[in-house]
């Protein structure tokens, strides 16, 4: 079980209250019409699957229902950092 710090509730809660929503920081192309099929396909379907640091989007589904970002090590399961939407991670892969 993860013990996750919600940056909006400002306290640790059980993983049960949260949902993982996949990779964070995926910007929608500003002009979708101008995308090639490859660019659009990669935006829609292609996700990172790193061994090590991963920036993820989570939602406090049973709590405040706000989204936030988490940097997590997929190998050790260690949560490195939690930060709000719009902020940049301070822990990044080399």
């Amino acid at each position: 079980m993860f013990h996750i710090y919600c940056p909006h509730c400002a306290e640790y809660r059980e993983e049960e209250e949260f949902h993982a929503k996949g990779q964070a920081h995926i910007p929608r192309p500003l002009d979708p019409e101008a995308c090639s099929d490859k660019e659009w396909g990669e935006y829609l379907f292609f996700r990172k699957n790193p061994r090590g640091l991963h920036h993820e989007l989570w939602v406090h589904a049973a709590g405040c229902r706000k989204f936030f970002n988490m940097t997590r090590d997929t190998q050790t399961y260690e949560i490195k950092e939690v930060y709000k939407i719009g902020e940049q991670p301070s822990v990044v892969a080399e």
Partner: protein
Amino acid sequence: MSDLNVMTPEQSAATKAAVMNQVPGPEIQGQSPLHHADLESLAQQGPKTGGVHLRELKLLGHLTLRCNPENGDQLAAVERVLGVALPLQPLTSTEKGGYSIRWMSPDEWLILVPGLETFDIEAKFRDEMPGHYSLVNSSGGSTVLELSGANVIDVLKKSTPVDLHPKEFPVGKVVSTVFAKSTATIRRSGEQRFELIIRRSFSDYIWLWLQDASREYGLVIEA
């Protein structure tokens, strides 16, 4: 959000939503989501002593308010309408008389008021609140259970993963969390008293769950 709050009085007036009184009047008796459980009869016939006391605070008005916590005009308007300020710190609540406000999210609050006053308060909000906000009457969607007694914490420990120690969960704190296989908004209203706001559609399930979970301590129904 902030630039949406800069509106001329005409624009502000144009945002006035049509408000409908959902309660027909005191002459028609409302039915709470636990009407079928007939808590009144159980309160009369059931045991009078036990470790857990359960009471339904039924047919209250539930108003969900979403607004900007950084907009001083909106905060002042709420205080004018309810006589009590919005709790701005996470997981806190404020209360005055029959009115209580729970922090649900950084920009969302749940206001509980006496059922028959709901429409008046809603209308007052429409007159007083400036700028961009949302007020929804969600009274029909949930109900409130009050649990108290010497073993109330033992029952809650079976049902939810939050830390209920008084140091972590002081009187007045509010958490929205998982409860049994459903969810609840739990507020500590006294050392050994908690209020659970539960979904209407889960009220029967949670009623059955609480009966089962409190069997070993003895459940007293109050009406």
